[in-house]
């Protein structure tokens, strides 16, 4: 602590330069926080995917439908505990930019397979007994200021009903929350029986199946058994774990993790150069002062520590402030897309990673200038001053 004043005084020596360096580090860590939240939003499905759940889709693509009778057949396959269908509706609420996922499901079965969707008991019962009922996640409900009891009109883009009518009207009976952070609360679910009876085309078909396996260790084996069951049929299947399914979805826009990592590597490398140059310049400018410190008895290690302390202080001030502001802004303001992302938060894991990067960056940027300062030969440096 007795050297803190010395470190702080040196940082105040060139205020503008220190402020600009601080600002660049600060902005870099805000960017880090935002990118971490976006990556979380785009890949979170993989993290919350049930290890005991498989997704069974058409072998050609997810947009090819499967027969509705596969459910019963799948439930006969050893290792399958439960199966339930789901179908992508793809409608529009008022205007196309109001996107949120609408999925047709069998309520009891679906909630049984997805216990992470938490719904009050009365709302759950209302959904089970009302054919036109729908539930929605908290994020989307807040986005459109919906409340239980509202009638929600959705314009179909494909699934017309009643001889070409595009507008489907649903009774909102429940708003679900996620049992843990990372659960998608943007989705809108309504009943398969109502949908199947009312739709104009392709009755009896479904988009995909969700299958619960009785032993998650045997998931791959069960997936193979499912695919073998429907092999050589008109609608062959591709079964895979839910995590693999979500990953293949997010991989359609590229390896998000690698993209984020590349951006942040470039940002931090630039910061390394900026902060490193600031420290190197600062040490060059006060060679004489450092020599005086050593002349009065400071050891090489103490001078090295002082310079390293300055680098750590400047990076820590900028970095931790950036992380704190990113965390606060993301927590308070939330999803900047207004709810188009399934979730938007700064994961704790990334916050810790950010803090570690701050410390590492401080050490790396300060190390060479500190070493240079530590190795300074007193007599030579004093001779240059004279």
């Amino acid at each position, binding site marked *: 602590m*007795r*050297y803190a*004043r*010395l470190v702080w*005084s*040196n940082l*105040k*020596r060139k205020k503008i330069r220190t402020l600009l360096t601080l600002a660049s580090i600060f902005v870099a860590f805000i960017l880090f926080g935002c990118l971490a939240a976006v990556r979380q939003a785009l890949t979170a499905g993989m993290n919350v995917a049930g290890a005991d759940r498989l997704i069974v889709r058409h072998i050609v693509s997810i947009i090819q439908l499967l027969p509705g009778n596969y459910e019963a057949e799948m439930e006969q396959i050893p290792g399958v505990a439960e199966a339930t269908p789901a179908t992508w509706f793809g409608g529009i609420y008022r205007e196309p930019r109001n996107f949120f996922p609408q999925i047709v499901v069998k309520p009891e079965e679906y909630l049984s397979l997805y216990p992470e969707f938490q719904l009050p008991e009365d709302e759950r019962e209302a959904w089970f007994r009302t054919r036109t009922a729908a539930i929605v996640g908290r994020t989307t409900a807040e986005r459109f200021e919906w409340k239980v009891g509202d009638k929600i009109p959705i314009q179909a883009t494909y699934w017309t009903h009643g001889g070409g009518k595009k507008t489907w009207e649903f009774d909102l009976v429940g708003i679900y929350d996620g049992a843990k952070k990372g659960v998608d609360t943007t989705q809108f679910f309504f009943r398969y029986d109502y949908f199947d009876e009312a739709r104009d085309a392709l009755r009896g078909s479904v988009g995909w199946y969700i299958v619960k396996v009785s032993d998650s260790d045997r998931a791959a084996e069960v997936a193979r058994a499912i695919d073998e069951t429907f092999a050589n049929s008109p609608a062959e299947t591709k079964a895979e774990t839910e995590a693999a399914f979500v990953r293949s979805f997010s991989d359609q826009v590229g390896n998000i993790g690698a993209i984020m990592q590349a951006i942040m590597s470039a940002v931090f490398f630039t910061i390394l150069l900026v902060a490193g140059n600031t420290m190197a310049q600062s040490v060059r400018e006060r060679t*004489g*002062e450092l020599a*005086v*410190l*050593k*002349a*009065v*008895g*400071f*050891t*090489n*290690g*103490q001078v090295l520590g002082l310079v390293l302390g300055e680098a750590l202080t400047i990076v820590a001030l900028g970095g931790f402030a950036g992380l704190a502001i990113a965390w606060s802004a993301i927590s308070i303001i939330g999803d900047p897309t207004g709810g188009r992302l399934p979730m938007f938060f700064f994961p704790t894991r990334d916050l810790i990673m950010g803090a570690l990067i701050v410390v590492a960056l401080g050490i790396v940027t300060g190390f060479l200038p500190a070493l240079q300062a530590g190795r300074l030969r*007193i*007599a030579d440096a*004093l*001779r240059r*001053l*004279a």
Partner: protein
Amino acid sequence: MSESNGALVRVEKVSKTFKRGAEKIHVLDGLDLSLLKGEFLALMGPSGSGKSTLLNIIGGLDSPTAGAVSVGGERIDRLSGKKLAAWRARHIGLVFQFYNLLPVLSAERNVELPLLLTRLSGAERRKHVDTALGVVGLSHRQKHYPRELSGGEQQRVGIARGIVTDPTLLLCDEPTGDLDRKSGDEVLNLLAALNREHGKTIIMVTHDPHAAARASRKLYLDKGRLSQEPLE
């Protein structure tokens, strides 16, 4: 600190050679010097004669190429790194020609610097700093930064920094070289008082005969050797 044969500083057959490319420059050549405790020695000589080099060697800021240097009976030419730094902190006070104060620290913080290396508490350091600044007559300027002080005042702060740890030896390298006559005289009066009233042993490198006249002994350094009188 014990003394060897009554001498506080003993320099024996000390040589110092610098390399400039392939050329070797012999700055000090088998030089001997002995200094008693309480002496005030003025070291004179032409530019480049090696006065500052000798001062640096005695102060443990540089090492001799050959020979032995003892201060208070301790062979400092055998010390290195951490031990030498600790020895300097304990036994040497330095006063430079261009003051070499840290511009980002106030007068009191500059004076406190050597005390940061001790185990003294903040309050104890404060007391020592007050005393040192009182001795140099700058108690009223302790909160001022170097840029707010005159050259003479900066040098007095430099002297306060040099004496704040109550060192065995005060080494002054051209302490009046950057000052006008009036300020220079004030600094010399201060050094003389430190020697006379506080018993400080002082070695002062200077070009100025007027400054050297304030010392109790004068030596001339030229062509790597010391003499009582300047060489022709």
